[in-house]
C-alpha cells in the first residue's frame, strides 16, 4: 500500500500529460483530490491502518518502504501545504500554460517528498532529495524574469555543493557499513573500527543537509529563492519542500540512524542557536515582507535544530511538533504575503504601510500566524516552543533554553512591527487598480482561514494531543 503514495501521483502525472483537453482543464481538481486523499490517509491511519495491507503491486515493485508516527506527521504536512500551494496558484498564476506546468512540477515535488519520508535507505533518500531540489529550481524560475533566474541560480549552486557533500557522505557510509540501509548504517556505529570513517560521513552529510535546510551559516540561497519565486512556490518551499529535504532528513537520521555523541550534540546545538539568533536579528531590519518571512524561517528552523541537538525523546517530540506547526503558520504568513502582493502589487512594507486595514481577513489571519510564530499561548507555536524549551531545561542546557526564550521576544518584536505597520494603521494613499479582486480574494481567503483555523485548533486541543499524538513520536528512537 505504501508504494501508492509514490505511484499514484506518478500515474496522475502521465494522465495529465495525455493530449486530452478536458483532463488538462481539470488538472487542478484532480491534484487537489489526490492531496486531500493523502491528508485523510495520514489523519485516519489509527482508525484504518492501511500500511498493514500488502503491496498491491508487490510483484512488480519491491520497495523497502515503511511508515511510523514521524512519517504520518510528514505525510499530513506535505498534503496540507501542497494543497494550500495549489489553491494559491489557482488564484495567483494567470497564464493557463504556467498553471499547467505548476501542477505538473508540484506533483513531481510531492512524489519526491512522499518518497523521502517513506524510504529506509540512504541512497534512495538522496535520489528523492534531488528530485525535490530539481523540481524546486524549475518552480522558482517559472516566471523566468531576472530575479527568478538569479534566485534559482543561487539555489542551484549551493544545492550542487550540498549534493557533493551528501554523495561523499554516502560513499563513506558505504565504505563503513557495506550497505546503505538505515539498519546497516546504525549497526556500523557500534563497530569501533569504522568510527573514524563514520565521523567523516556524518560530518559531510550534515553539511549537505544544513545547506538544503537553509540553516545559518548555510542560508545564503534562502532569501533570494523565496523572494524571487511566485507566491504559490514560496508557500511550497517555505512550508514544506526545503524542510522535508533538509530538516526531516536530519530528524530521521538523528532519530533512527546516528548514535549521537557529545561533540556532535554541541555542534548541532550551536548551529541551532546561531540560526535562531541570526534569523531573528536579520528579520528585524528587513523592509520586504517575503525577505522578513525568509529570515523568520531560518530562525524557526533553528528551534527544530536546537531540539535535535538536545537529543532527548521529549526534545525530539517537540522538534516534530514544531516542524508541523511551522509548516502551517509559515504557509499562512506566505499566503498573507501573496494576498497583499496580489492586491497592492508589492511586498515592500514601506509601500504596504497603512494599506492592510482594507483586507480584514488577511489582517486577522496574519495576526494568528504572527502570534503563533512568536509562541504566544494558546496557539500551536506556543506549545511546540514550550516543549523544546522544557526539554532544554530538563537536560541542563540553560543557556540554550535562555537563547530560545529571548529569541521568541525578538520574533514577537519584528512581527508586531510588521503587523502594526501594515494592518493596524491607515494610510490615505490610493491603492492601485485591481485586476480581478473578487475571485482572487475568495480562493486566497479560503486558504488563509483554513490555515488560521488549523493553527488555533491545534493550540486549543493541545491538551488532548500529548498522549495520543506527540509522545508516540518518541517511539522512533532506537
Amino acid at each position, binding site marked *: 500500500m505504501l508504494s501508492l503514495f509514490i505511484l499514484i501521483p506518478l500515474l496522475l502525472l502521465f494522465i495529465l500529460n495525455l493530449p486530452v483537453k478536458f483532463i488538462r482543464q481539470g488538472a487542478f481538481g484532480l491534484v487537489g483530490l489526490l492531496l486531500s486523499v493523502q491528508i485523510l490517509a495520514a489523519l485516519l491511519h489509527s482508525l484504518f491502518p492501511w500500511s498493514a495491507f500488502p503491496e498491491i503491486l508487490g510483484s512488480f515493485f519491491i520497495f523497502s518502504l515503511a511508515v511510523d508516527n514521524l512519517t504520518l506527521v510528514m505525510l499530513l504536512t506535505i498534503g496540507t501545504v501542497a494543497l494550500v500551494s495549489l489553491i494559491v496558484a489557482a488564484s495567483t498564476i494567470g497564464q493557463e500554460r504556467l498553471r499547467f506546468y505548476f501542477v505538473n512540477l508540484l506533483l513531481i515535488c510531492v512524489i519526491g517528498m512522499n518518497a523521502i519520508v517513506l524510504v529506509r535507505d540512504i541512497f*534512495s533518500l538522496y535520489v528523492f532529495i534531488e*528530485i525535490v531540489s530539481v523540481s524546486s529550481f524549475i518552480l522558482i524560475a517559472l516566471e523566468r524574469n531576472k530575479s527568478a533566474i538569479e534566485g534559482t541560480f543561487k539555489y542551484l549552486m549551493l544545492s550542487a555543493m550540498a549534493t557533493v557533500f551528501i554523495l561523499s557522505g554516502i560513499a563513506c557510509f558505504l565504505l563503513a557499513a557495506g550497505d546503505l540501509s538505515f539498519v546497516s548504517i546504525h549497526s556500523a556505529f557500534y563497530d569501533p573500527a569504522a568510527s573514524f570513517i563514520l565521523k567523516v560521513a556524518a560530518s559531510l552529510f550534515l553539511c549537505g543537509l544544513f545547506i538544503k535546510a537553509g540553516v545559518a551559516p548555510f542560508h545564503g540561497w534562502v532569501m533570494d529563492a523565496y523572494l524571487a519565486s511566485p507566491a504559490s512556490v514560496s508557500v511550497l518551499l517555505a512550508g514544506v519542500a526545503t524542510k522535508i529535504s533538509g530538516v526531516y532528513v536530519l530528524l530521521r537520521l538523528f532519530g533512527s540512524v546516528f548514535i549521537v555523541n557529545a561533540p556532535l550534540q554541541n555542534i548541532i546545538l550551536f548551529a541551532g542557536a546561531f540560526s535562531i539568533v541570526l534569523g531573528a536579528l536579520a528579520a528585524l531590519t528587513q523592509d520586504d515582507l517575503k525577505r522578513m518571512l525568509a529570515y523568520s524561517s531560518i530562525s524557526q528552523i533553528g528551534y527544530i535544530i536546537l531540539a535535535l541537538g538536545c537529543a532527548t525523546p521529549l526534545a525530539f517530540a517537540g522538534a516534530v511538533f514544531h516542524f508541523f506547526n511551522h509548516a502551517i503558520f509559515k504557509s499562512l504568513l506566505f499566503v498573507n504575503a501573496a494576498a497583499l502582493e496580489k492586491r497592492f502589487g508589492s511586498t515592500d512594507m514601506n509601500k504596504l504601510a497603512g494599506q492592510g486595514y482594507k483586507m480584514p481577513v488577511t489582517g486577522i489571519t496574519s495576526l494568528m500566524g504572527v502570534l503563533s510564530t512568536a509562541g504566544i499561548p494558546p496557539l500551536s507555536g506556543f506549545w511546540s516552543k514550550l516543549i523544546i524549551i522544557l526539554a532544554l531545561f530538563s537536560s541542563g542546557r540553560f543557556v540554550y533554553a535562555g537563547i530560545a526564550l529571548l529569541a521568541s521576544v525578538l520574533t514577537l518584536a519584528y512581527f508586531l512591527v510588521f503587523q502594526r505597520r501594515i494592518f493596524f494603521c491607515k494610510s490615505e494613499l490610493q491603492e492601485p487598480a485591481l485586476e480581478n479582486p473578487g475571485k482572487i480574494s475568495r480562493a486566497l481567503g479560503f486558504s488563509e482561514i483554513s490555515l488560521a483555523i488549523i493553527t488555533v485548533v491545534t493550540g486549543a486541543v493541545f491538551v488532548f494531543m500529548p498522549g495520543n499524538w506527540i509522545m508516540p513520536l518518541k517511539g522512533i528512537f532506537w
Partner: protein
Amino acid sequence: MTINLILLFALILVALWTVMTIRLIRSIVGLALTSAILSVIMYRLHSPLAAVFELSVCSGLISVIFVTTVSFTQRISKEKLRIRRKERLLKFWYLPVILIATAVMLCQHLLTPQFTLPLLVPAQGLGVRDLLWSCRHLDLLGQVVMLLAGAFGVVILFKESRK
C-alpha cells in the same frame, strides 16, 4: 597504493585546471580528462562497468554536448581575455596552496600503516541487470521521475524562450 595516490592527485589537479581556465573549450577538455582519470581509478577499484559508463557518458557524450553549446557562443576580445585571466589568477591564488597542503596531509595520513581504507569486495555473481532490476527498484523509479523533471525544465526554461 602509490599509483592510486598519483591518480588522485592528478584528478584534483586536472579538476582545478578545469575550473580555473578562462576558455570554455579548455574547460571541457579538462572535464573530459577528469572523467578519464576517474574511470582509471574506478577500474583499479574493481568497478569496470562504472568505469566504462564514466568514460563513455561523462568523458564522451557530455563533452560533445558541451562543445556543441560552446559553438553557439561568441569569442571575447584578446584584451578582455587578458584582463579576466589576470583577475582570476589574483582572486584564486590560494587554491593551488590549499591543493598542495591537502596533498601533503593526505600523503602523510594515508601512508601511515594504522590507516586502512575498507575497500568493498565486489558482489559476486550479480550482473548489471540483476543489480539494477533486483536490488535498486526505487532508485530507478526515482531516476525516471528525475528525467521527467528534467524534461519539464527544458520545456519551461528553454523551449518557451525560443518563441
